[in-house]
């Protein structure tokens, strides 16, 4: 396992949300999703295959994403994932929840002694 793996720093349950968000932009294959997460998070989240694949499986089983074998730009076969309607709804809800929570947490962390 790569030492740079920051997966453990990921708040539990957020990986699913991030994958959904990535797929909301366009359908993508497994490796692409990993790379995209890496790029967008500017290297903060490097998610390895051991976490990605279970997540794909989980999301697929829950009907939030669907998979399809397609040919990539450089003519290779790859399994592409795309968001379903249910996935889109879940993402919207998860995003809303996350923003509320994150804002609350941030407020608490910023609080000065006088406020507490």
């Amino acid at each position, binding site marked *: 396992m790569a030492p740079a793996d920051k997966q453990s720093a990921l708040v539990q349950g957020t990986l699913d949300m991030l994958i959904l968000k990535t797929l909301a932009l366009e359908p993508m294959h497994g490796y*692409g999703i990993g790379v995209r997460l890496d790029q967008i998070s500017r290297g903060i989240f490097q998610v390895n295959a*051991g976490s990605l694949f279970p997540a794909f499986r989980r999301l697929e089983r829950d009907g939030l994403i669907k998979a399809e074998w397609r040919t990539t730009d450089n003519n290779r076969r790859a399994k592409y994932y795309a968001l379903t309607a249910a996935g889109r709804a879940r993402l919207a809800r998860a995003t809303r929840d996350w923003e509320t929570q994150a804002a609350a947490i941030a407020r608490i962390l910023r609080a000065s002694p006088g406020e507490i």
Partner: protein
Amino acid sequence: MPLLSRLLTGFRALLRKERDERDLDEELRAFLEADVEQRMQSGMSRRDALRAARAHIGSIEAVKDHTRDAGWESRLDSVGRDVRYALRGLRRSPGFTAVAVLTLALGIGANSAVFSVVNGLLLRTLPVTAPERLAMISTQQSLNDGFGAGWNFAMWDQFHHRAQLFDGAIAWTYFPQQFDLADTGESDPADGLFVSGEFFSELGVSPLLGRTFLPEDDELGKEREHAAVISYGFWQRRFGGAPDAIGRQLMVNRAPVTIVGVTPPGFLGPEVGRAFELALPIGSAPVILNERTWAKPEGRSYLAVMLRLKPGQTRDGASALLRGMQHQIIDAAMPRNGIWGEVQDDMMKDPIVLTPASAGTSELRRQYSQPLLTVLAIAATVLLVACVNMANLLLARATSRQQELQVRLAIGASRWRILQQMLVESLLLSAMGASLGLGVAAWGGRTLVAQLSTWFDRIVLDVQLDWRVVAFTGGVAVATGVLFGMAPAITAFDLARHGGGRSPIGARSTDSRRAVALRGGLLVAQVALSLVLVVAAGLFVRTFQKLGEVPLGFDSDRVLVVRVNASRSTADSTIPSGSYVRLLDAARGVPGVAHAAVSLNTPVNRGVTFVTDFRGVGGRDLPLKERRSIVNLVTPGWFETYGAAITVGRPLQESDTKATAPIVVVNEAFAQKFFGGHSVVGEYIAPEIRGDFDRPQPLLIVGVVSNSVDQSLRYEAVPAVYQPVAQFTRPIPMAEFSLSLRAASGSPAALTRSVSAALTSADRHLAFSFHLLEDQVRGARNQERLVAWLSGFFGVLALLLAAIGLYGVTSYIVARRQMEIGIRLALGAQRADVVRVSVGQTAITTTIGVVVGLGAAAIVTRYLKTLLFGITPLDAATFVTAAVVLMAVALLTCYVPARRATRIDPMIALRSE
């Protein structure tokens, strides 16, 4: 996501594991390849890129493992792990496992056993083609009376002619129940069945060997060979399964018949509870029974008639169809002349009704439905007690596993994961109990059915463990597993999460408040349920006892009853011929016979009772329906044979003949009812016979005899009239009658051989069978005996379970409080105080349980009313006895562990922590 599609994908995943594996492999390869390409683009050599990519992805197998775990089907894997874990745990405590599995095997097995009989009697459909389209032809009145209608041959003929309106019609009768296969002398009985020509083909029962009947076998009044179809059981018993049984001849009631076919083993006949051995066509009945009136309007009505509805035809539609033709049918079958006018009027007014018959008909079902369902309810309650016991045992186990569970929670096991594990353990126990229980059920079901048979009925019931019984057992197992597993599982979780905390003295953790309350509640429930069962058992045992105490009005232990069939006798067998006298003399000549008498009927013989309406001349004016009395024709010596006491007047005498004035002896009930209890000797009674017979003479009462039981032990004494056979003038045939013998000493069974020889030498055409009056009396109590036996068994089982439960809980409490007791003793508490404290807690719980149980029993027992006899459902003696027994058992069982507590050495107790 809808649950269903989620389940489907899960199952598909399980089924298509291999394909999914390949899919995953390929996807991972693509992933790796993409990574390599990416790295090569940034200038790495392919080799370096490959190595870096491999290092990045880590172990491929680990990735695959994680991925596989993500689906719900991996839950099954985790269940598998839990099962293995639970098995290890159970193996570690073999004592607990044995007690638990045995308790459950008995509890579940008892339920399955009773259910298998209920299934065989009430639920199974006949093993014939399309049983759901079968319907019995009955009438409203006969249904109201609780029996199906019987039809005579003439009526059946009418239905038969209209069979094309339906998908066919068939008829059968079990009368005369047994055929006699002997050539001479004592009967060699076989369970007989007369059926119509299309019976087997219509039902779709094809022969195992040979053929079944053809319509021409069933033609009436033709000189021909009589065909017989035998059952598989009879074929095995009689011919050892020899294939050349076909074509062999048998003597049936002294007439030759030829075996033409054997039915398959699954088919026992149209009536559930009975198994025919030998079937003959109805058309052969007049010859076989030597009954010339068979096909005439006055022929007896004992045929059951069944229709097969056409596909799509409803029962109501078919009923309406028949009702529209009811007039024609009856008119054709019973020409309106003479005495039939009245009968015909009655029949016209009684509408024809079709009843569903997919499960066949059954006399046994009518008699045993309620007792069986009651016993099933009792068995279910016993299982409930067993469940409570198990819950208590598991609760104690869970508490002692607290630490293990705390560790598991601490390292991240979810609440569900722990619940799952606990439930898996309890379900495993109940599954083991259930599989053993199926064995108990197979044995118990057979034993139960064997108990149903009496001297009169050979009961054969198919109680094999079919899918219904297995499904029932499975359902019960899951229900019990969840029932007794849930409470301990939740408590265990509770304990583990909140932690029992550390008790102020010592490091041993204490029980949570909830666990203590739960345990108390379970004990109360257990005691209460057990008490209800003990009360029910007490009521049934007392009922059986009371029936045994019913004054019979005769001695049963010395009497041998010989049922004589004289239908083949060459002598004139009508009553006035007096041909019975020869037999009576022959029997009286046998050494060891003290008294002998001939009669039309004997008590408790399950035979037909003759009744006549009477009017007491100068007696009370009774409403029409109240004038009925039993009539028995007897010879002098009858009262002596049965040991019945003449209370006033004289018995019948040899001097009462055709030449003298007709006399009768009546019983006390008759005197009471018809004359209001006056002295009745010297009064006259007049038989009221409808129809065109001669007005019979009034009969002079010469004596009064004490009341005696007629057919049922449950009814109060009914009026009865005893008339001398010699004075009976109507020329009715007496093909069947009884010869009752009283042995001078010893068992009357010893007389059979010499009586048999004497009767055969008197008339070699006679057929006869021997019955001990004692057996017949016992047979009359069979249902009550069975219910008393079963409920008593379950009552004792419940007591035992309650005792085990109380013992276990008291032991547990004592063990948990070992240190406290040690300290008390060290501080100078008396041993008696320690016992009192330990017993006291259980005593309080038991008392609450007993009070709740008494209340529950008072509510429940009213539903048992119709099954009881001689006691009320609230019989005080039974209730008090049950409560005392339960309290005594409870105190005894908790005294033992309490005593043990006093032997605790304070030093050891304190050091052990």
